[in-house]
Structure formats: C-alpha cells, structure tokens
C-alpha cells in the first residue's frame, strides 16, 4: 500500500516530535497534574500518593499558608517577605548594572571590548554551587571582604551569622527607632501572622551576601542582551542626534533608552522570574539560616517535602509560587501591550 505524500508527512512529523513530546509530557505536564492532587492531600511520602489510604484534605494545605495561624504560615510569610526584598533589590540593581556596563563596553572610544565582555559574562556560565562555595570563602568572618573592609578601617560583620535586617539597622542608625526595643505600634500586629516590625526588617545581612552573589553572576547575561540591542541601533540615528547638538546625556535619554525599551522589559521580566526561584545558593550557603532570614518559598517548599515529609504543604507552596510568577509575567505582558499600541 502506498500512502499519499500528505499522510506520509503527517506521520513523519509526529515521529520527529514524538520523543520530545513524550518526555515533556511525562516529566513536565504529568508531574504538575500529580502534584495538584498531592497538594490536596496529607501524603507523607510513604507508598503511592494515589492509594486509597492517603488522607484527602481539600484546600487545607493552602489555607494553612494564608489564613490559619501557625508555624507553617509564619514560615511561609517569612519566606515571602525575604523573597520580596530579594526581588525588589536584586532586579533593579542587576538591571542598572547590566545596562551601565553595556553602555560603557559599547562605547566606540574604548578598546578591548571582547575582553571586558568576556570578563563580565564569565561568572554567569559557571556552576552556581561552585560559585556559592567561593562566596562562602570570600565572605567568611576573616575572609577577603572583611580583610578589604579592615583596610579601610571598617569592621565587617559575621556575614552568614548575622540575622539583623538591613532596614532595621538603617532605621536604628538614623535614630528613628530603638532596634532593641521597637515601638509597640509596629510589634503589636500585622498582616498574615507577622508583625509590621517583622515585615519591615528588610533583607538580613546574611541575605545580602546571597543578593550580592546573584547580582554578580547574572548581570553579565543581561549585559549581553543590552549589548546586542545597542548594536542594533542604527548609527545614523545617533549621528543625526549629534548633528542636532544633543549632548551625551540627552542622547542617552531621548535616543538610546527609548530604543532599548523592549530589551529593558525583557530583562526585568526574566530577572523577576529568576529571582522568585532562588534556590541553589540558599541550599549551599545558608539553608534558610540565620533566624530564617534566608528562607525563600522555593527552599521552604523543598524542605517541607523532603525534610519534614509534608509533601502536601510543599506542593501547595510550589503552586502559590507558580501563581506569583505567572501573575508577574501577566502584569508585565499587559504593561508591554499598553506601550505597543
């Protein structure tokens, strides 16, 4: 029997995509469906989660995160707080740094472009675990950073043991509040089981080392993206603006930056998505310590499942994290559409 050319192309097409289709289906789609079920149960990791003995608890695992007072909510909200500060600081700083470096590297007067580009990019291709080890050494109490600070007469903190929030330290340093005896107005209450005072802690000193590490590793990738966009800007446009007598800042503000807007939005989205998922560095450097100030939802979901055998809570946290990331992506898409029309 001879098949028609069309039928043969149909079969060939499916055969070509079959392996990828099966693997992504079995290890991306199916797991998500299974996890949705597990997030509605109290499965403890013994046997199969689909056997009849596994207790079905409905949305309990989710309400434990938001409405029920208890350790689970306290930990989850602490992890959300930590990650909000983390995203809020890492994303702007790495974006500005990447853009700044791209502008300098792209400058026509300077030589050695290739070398500097490689130097800035190299950290982002290396192993996150290996880099975390290096930063553990560099930020050790008598490590390189504290040695450098001592050179300038500053006594560095015990980075990884320091749970003090930076915002608390700043408020205390300005004399606005007494850190050891915070105002009752703030400690009295607050949303989701954490007091206002706890919400306003800022990232801890320990968390700042992780933030520095991530800014340091990812800026290079984003710099490359800005650099590619900068090279797409037609030279004639810049020359025209130069002839019009625009100074360097004006050119940056009115010619270069508007052209970079799509890349800027992309970098911000990718940054937000990645920073909500911080995990490797936390696992290697701090495991959530000190004082739970480096706990993140991703790490908490892992420990809930694999250390405490509360797979239901762990998967529920994953899905909340998923929702947070999707929400940010949608908001960003929506903002982009506004600008395009």
């Amino acid at each position, binding site marked *: 029997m001879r098949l028609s050319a069309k039928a*043969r192309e149909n079969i060939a097409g499916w055969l070509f995509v079959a392996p*990828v289709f099966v693997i992504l289906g079995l290890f991306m789609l199916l797991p998500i469906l299974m996890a949705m079920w597990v997030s509605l149960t109290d499965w403890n990791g013994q046997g199969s989660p689909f056997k009849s003995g596994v207790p079905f608890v409905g949305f309990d695992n989710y309400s434990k995160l938001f409405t029920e007072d208890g350790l689970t909510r306290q930990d989850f909200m602490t992890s959300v707080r930590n990650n909000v500060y983390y995203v809020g600081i890492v994303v702007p700083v790495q974006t500005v740094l990447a853009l700044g470096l791209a502008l*300098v590297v792209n400058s026509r007067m300077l030589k050695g472009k290739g070398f500097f580009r490689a130097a800035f990019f190299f950290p982002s291709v290396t192993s996150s675990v290996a880099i975390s080890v290096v930063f553990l050494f560099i930020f050790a109490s008598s490590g390189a950073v504290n040695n450098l600070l001592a050179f300038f007469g500053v006594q560095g903190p015990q980075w990884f043991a320091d749970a003090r929030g930076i915002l608390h330290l700043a408020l205390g340093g300005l004399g606005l509040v007494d850190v050891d005896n915070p105002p009752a107005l703030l400690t009295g209450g607050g949303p989701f089981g954490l007091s206002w005072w706890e919400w306003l802690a800022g990232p801890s000193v320990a968390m700042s080392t992780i933030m520095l590490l991530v800014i340091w590793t990812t800026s290079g990738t984003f710099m490359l993206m800005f650099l590619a966009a900068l090279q797409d800007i037609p030279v004639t446009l810049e020359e025209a603006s130069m002839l019009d007598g625009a100074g360097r800042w004006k050119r940056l503000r009115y010619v270069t930056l508007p052209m970079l807007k799509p890349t800027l939005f992309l970098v911000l989205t990718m940054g937000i998505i990645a920073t909500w998922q911080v995990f490797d560095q936390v696992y290697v450097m701090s495991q959530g310590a000190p004082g739970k100030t480096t706990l993140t939802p991703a790490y908490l979901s892992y420990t809930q499942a694999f250390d405490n055998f509360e797979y239901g809570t762990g998967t529920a946290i*994953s899905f909340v994290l998923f929702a947070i990331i999707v929400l940010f992506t949608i908001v960003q898409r929506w903002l982009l559409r506004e600008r395009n029309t």
Partner: protein
Amino acid sequence: MATVRANHGARTVASTFVGYFILIFFALVFIYPFVIQLSASFKTEPNAALNPLNPVPDPFVTDAYHKVFLSTDMPLWLGNSLIVTIAITLGRVLLDSMAGYALARLRFRGRRALFSAVIAILAVPGVVLFIPKFLVLKQFGMYDTYTALILPIIADAGGVFIMKQFFESIPRSVEEAARIDGAGTWRIFWSVVLPMGRPALITLTIVSFQSSWNEFAHSLVAVQSPDLYTLPRGLAVLVSGSLGSGNQYPLKLGAAVLATIPVAIIFVVFQRYFVRGANEGADK
C-alpha cells in the same frame, strides 16, 4: 573656536579615562573571586585563612588536590557528571533538532497546538517542578537511578525553540532539490538539513553542556544514594561540612575549581557561541 575644540578634546580624554576606570574596576570585581578561588586552592590551610586576598600562594602546595582525589568521592562525582552531561547533551541536540525541524518544516496535524505547548512549557518555572518530578520518578520506579538523572531533562523546550528558529531561516530550495531526487524525510533531515545547521547545533551543544554540567537541583529530587552524586551535588555535600574538622577551604575551593574548569575551557574556546546562546534565549 580653538578653546572649544581643546575643551572638547580634554573632555574626550577624561571620559575615555573614566570609561577604562569603570571597565577595569568591574573586570576586577567579576574576575578576582576566581583568582582568589584558584590561588587559595594551592595554599596551605592556615595561609588561606590568614591571607585570603593574596593572589600568590606562598608556599605553593597541591595538598588540597591530593586530598580531593584521595579522601573524597571526587573521581566518582566526576565520572557521574561526565556520563550524565554527555548523555543529556547528545540527547538534547538530537531530539531538540528533530522536533525543531518538524515544527519548522513538516506539515502535520496538531503542529500549531504542539508549538503553543512548547511555548507554554518554556514559561513553567523550574523550581515549581521539584516535588512534581520526584513524584513522577517515584511512581515510575525510576527514582535513584541514572535514568532519573538523565531522562527527565534529556529534551528541553528552549532547545526546540532555538532549532525551530534556525531551521526556519534556511532556504527551502535545498530540501526540495533533495526531495525531487527521491530522498525521504529522515534522509533530508540527517544528510541535508542537519549539516547546514552547524552554527545552531554548536550553540545548542554548548548551552546543553553548560546547563547539564552545572545542574544541581534536579539531582536533589532525582537521586539520593551517594553513588549517583554528580559533581555539583557532591560539592554541595562536601561544603555542608560532612568532612568535619576545620574549614578546609583549600580542599573545598579545589573541588569548586574542578567543577568550574570544563565550562571555563569551553567558554574560552567557544565564547561567541555562548554569547549567541544567551541572546537566543532572549528572543523566546
């Protein structure tokens, strides 16, 4: 007029100077940690603790590396990492380019829906899949095997996307000539299209190698027995202090150096493909 020009010249010199200052400062910030890492791995333990900033190991010792190879499971981790990385890289290059080719060129039912699915999967944050992947591996009885380390990540949506974009950019006429000569779809793909895809294939190979060599989180949810640890996993365990006594920084940093070297070599040799990979990722 002359003073204006002189002024302008002076400003150019000044801004060139400032530009180089910024570049060199940040180059130091980005590279010096690696210098510290490398030199500390050749220092004695007291020296590494006392002079962490000094780039010159004095005395120069290779104790750390002896210890890494003799008293840790480093040879095993290296071997596992090599097996896993090679399998994943080969798999991704073959499977992603097959799927990319079909999505770009072959007309079959469900093609559009499949491509939308690939895009949707690209948007799923990896961290969310930790526990789900563990569940599926347990259910299939694959947990704690080499299969668990390799199979779930042997195809990736990002690679399919890169290859599809590439195949769409090459002219159809070549394939049509081969088709008239009577070549089947597989023949056309294997001996006509794929050889034309060298730049994209190299990019995909490098990106896959780098990401699977560095992969850590997947190993955490796929295996538990120390016999199956890859290098990042072994390194993480080593650092979390299972070796006990003291800080052992030269040893840990030496192990970290070994984890960094393969990617560093590939980076130096194939830098422009890395750059391309980073920007392809941006197009998604």
